[in-house]
């Protein structure tokens, strides 16, 4: 168990940057009045952020990933979370084996 000084400094700096982003939103909404326009923008944030996170994997990584994302989305309309995710993981594994990637 060693602790390098530079590594420790880097970890603390990363943690500080992350905490900053996590509390900044709270500070922001204290100073910005929430009207109808701001409310609409806030409501769009959850789907917009989640879509942005998955878009490169879903659309430009490979056919197996695209197929698995579609399968997961369809499964999500009628199955609980864990079942839909299992289907996605299964489809991606089979798909990758099929395309040899």
């Amino acid at each position, binding site marked *: 168990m060693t602790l390098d000084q530079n590594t420790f400094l880097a970890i603390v700096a990363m943690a500080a940057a992350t905490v900053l982003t996590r509390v900044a939103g*709270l500070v922001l909404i204290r100073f910005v009045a929430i009207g109808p326009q701001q409310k609409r923008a806030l409501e769009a944030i959850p789907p917009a952020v*989640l879509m942005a996170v998955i878009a490169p994997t879903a659309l430009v990584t490979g056919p197996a990933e695209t197929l698995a994302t579609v399968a997961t989305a369809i499964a999500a309309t009628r199955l609980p979370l864990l079942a839909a995710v299992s289907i996605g993981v299964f489809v991606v594994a089979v798909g990758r084996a099929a395309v040899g990637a």
Partner: protein
Amino acid sequence: MKRAEKLEEFAGGMKAMAPLTVAVMPIGLVFGAVAASKGLSSLEVLLMSALVFAGGSQFVAMDIWKHPASWGALAFSALLVNIRHVLMSASIGTKMPAFSGPAKYAAMLLLADEIWAMAELRAERTRLTPAWYAGLAIPFYCVWVLASLAGSIVGALLGDPNVVGLDFAFPAVFTVLVMGFWKGRETGAVLAASALAAVLAHQLLPGAWYIAAGAAAGVVATLLTGRRREVCA
């Protein structure tokens, strides 16, 4: 709220989060293994997962890791990858009337993507309480930290997670959660704009700008469709 009610709420949050808490185990193991292969000791892996607690930025940090570690570059990269948290905490912050001021800030320290998304879903349906949020966040946090520690110790034994598709677990979780936020055509416009901007930024820009680009495009899309409807009406 009585003690028994609090416990019930805590258990409810823990139960809702259970599939994700299980799914984060292999991801944590992989993170620990990758970090060990970059020369981090188990203590350093433990500290990073416990203090940073943001998987995406931790993996990106391993991508650009050098010895000796350059704190400026790593902090900037973490800032960029996690800039989406500003939007996330602004959004969930408006849905926490049951939280005291300090409790709100404490809750934000554990605002990882998965925790935030489940809290948003809960707030759509019912009142989000501190006890429910704690049940959501604390077990997930502990599993992430312990799994990365375990990964750093047994790392070399793990092999390649891509073969069995486990790396797809989190994109799949996020896909399911996106479907939960579907509210009709307007959501479609937000998703299309976000996906397009994210893919373009991903192809053209280095690093994690694509998440900020997609999020911004989605918000702009909702404001534009809102304005158009006002004009038509």
